């Protein structure tokens, strides 16, 4: 927990003023202003940058969404999934199928594809939740493999060779890229804010309780399974959005790449490097991962070796990640409460 709760049953010596309980502080207010400024700049960016930059940034936004979703699962829900590529793929394929085969407007098809992901995740959770811990992790992976193998059999979306997103073909590339960029930025902002608001809600409190002590949370009346299922469904929808973003950006979907377990590796590395269990961590992790990807690109496979080693070392040495190095002094998204003297 980031905040400090008053100890249960703590008594206050007579003659002192009650402590002031507050959420956030000066750093959060400064941070909020800074973030609004950053988003404003990002909104304006297509008017002053190349198409290549916009395409690159959509890649970064998808990393932000993926990291945030994986952090929601693992950092807040306590579920390690290595099968989120199932929903990335369904989101990507959903966009192509809805827009190309059913003629839906692609910008409308993106949220619809995310809803489809949520609808698939809900019954799937009943199977996956029969497993816990590491076995849950591999179970989600099997589910992703099943989805991949099934999609490979569907001729309507190009079976094993994949399909192209042709719905944008009437649009000038300049506009198409800018629209996709704005859509992706919107999705990234909505997803991050959405998780922030979720964690400030009652459900967020329940999730924190589950993460800290599942047995106690269950006996104190928190519906553990329901909260975890909600997280699983939301994370699936979020990963679906990311998948749709990726396909809208590259205009191409292939079962081998969109269902690749490498996405899970990316998500895990982003969250571990940035800092698990915080809203800010995945943001930092996504940016670091994005920069590393750029600088280490010529290293080929060594790049994943380096990132993997970094993630292992961070897990063992600094389990709270880069954001943890701030030791809670900086808090952009205040979830917990602080207790301090009044005034």
């Amino acid at each position, binding site marked *: 927990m980031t905040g400090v709760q008053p100890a249960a049953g703590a008594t206050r010596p007579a003659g002192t003023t009650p402590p002031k309980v507050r959420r956030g502080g000066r750093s959060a207010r400064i941070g909020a202003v800074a973030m609004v400024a950053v988003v404003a700049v990002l909104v304006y960016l297509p008017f002053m940058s190349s198409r290549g930059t916009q395409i690159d940034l959509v890649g970064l936004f998808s990393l932000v969404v993926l990291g945030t979703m994986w952090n929601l699962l693992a950092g807040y829900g306590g579920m390690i999934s290595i099968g989120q590529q199932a929903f990335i793929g369904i989101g990507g394929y959903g966009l192509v199928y809805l827009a190309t085969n059913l003629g839906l407007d692609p910008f409308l098809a993106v949220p619809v594809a995310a809803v489809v992901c949520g609808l698939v995740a809900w019954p799937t959770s009943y199977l996956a939740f029969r497993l816990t811990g590491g076995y849950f992790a*591999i179970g989600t992976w099997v589910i992703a*493999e099943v989805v991949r193998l099934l999609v490979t059999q569907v001729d309507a979306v190009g079976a094993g060779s994949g399909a192209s997103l042709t719905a944008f073909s009437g649009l000038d590339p300049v506009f198409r890229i800018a629209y996709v960029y704005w859509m992706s930025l919107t999705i990234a902002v909505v997803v991050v804010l959405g998780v922030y608001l979720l964690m400030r809600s009652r459900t967020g409190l329940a999730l924190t309780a589950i993460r800290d002590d599942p047995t106690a949370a269950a006996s104190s009346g928190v519906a553990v399974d329901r909260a975890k299922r909600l997280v699983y469904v939301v994370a699936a929808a979020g990963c679906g959005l990311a998948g749709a973003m990726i396909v809208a950006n590259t205009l191409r979907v292939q079962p081998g790449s969109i269902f690749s377990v490498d996405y899970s590796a990316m998500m895990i590395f982003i969250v571990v490097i940035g800092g698990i269990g915080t809203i800010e961590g995945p943001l930092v992790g996504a940016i670091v991962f994005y920069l590393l990807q750029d600088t280490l690109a010529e290293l080929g496979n060594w790049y994943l070796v380096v990132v993997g080693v970094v993630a292992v070392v961070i897990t063992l040495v600094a389990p709270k990640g880069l954001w943890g190095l701030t030791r809670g002094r900086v808090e952009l998204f205040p979830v917990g409460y602080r207790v301090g003297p009044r005034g």
Partner: protein
Amino acid sequence: MNTVNAVVQGVLLGGLYALVAAGLSLVFGVMRIVNLAHGVLAVLAAYGSLLLGEHLGWNPFLSLLVVVPAMAALGYALQRALLDRALRGGELAPLLVTFGLAIVIQNLLLETFSADTQRLDVGAFGGASIELTDGLAIGWFPLLAAAAGVLVIAGLGQFLARTRTGRAMRATSDDQEAAQLMGIDNRRLYAVATAIALGTVAIAGVFLGSRSTFDPSAGATTLIFAFEAVVIGGLGSLWGTLLGGVVLGVAQGLGAAIDPAYGVLAGHLVFLAVLAVRPRGLLPSAVTA
């Protein structure tokens, strides 16, 4: 006849799946961690055997004499250097560390050996078979591989049931703190368990690599098949795992008999079906070990 053949081949393959799974179960039983690098470590062993074959001309069987102890030593060191630390970091840390390790090893293999598919060469023996009836033949090598799987699993079972260290592992699995009060050094025991797990997975890796082709990414399916064998059979039961491996192998064989593309999928679907209707597996043990 095709069906009978598929079943027979599936049964033989199941023995190897169970062998991979046995190490996964052992580590989980003793330390309650799932080693997500388990599959890629089997592949690493296969590449080790490949190197010995290329440079020294060693037969895969002969290479086991070096690969198995080397992998066991690696397991011991890995436990001492990385996993012990990860165990102290809570529930998520061992998963994150072993997954990171899997990615690192896989990409190191990719960088060293390229993505080309490889196969270990067991010589003329690899193609020899016993003709049972017209159209049904059992290859000597798959038979030997399955027998090795059953033998190692039986040996592991005897080790856990009869030896002082095996008993200590079961005791630690039941109650780690109480086991320490009996004088059991749990850290040493963990390292021994991981060493045994990697020794057995090395055997499995070399046999799998001789039976069919592999590449650096083969660790993923190896881990998944082993996991499916464990869950189908029932957690904590070695013989259940063997049954689970056989069921998985047969499902894959029958699926592939219908259409080669359905083999792996059929295995996954049987796994999901077991998870849905019999989540404790086909042969659940009374107490999870």
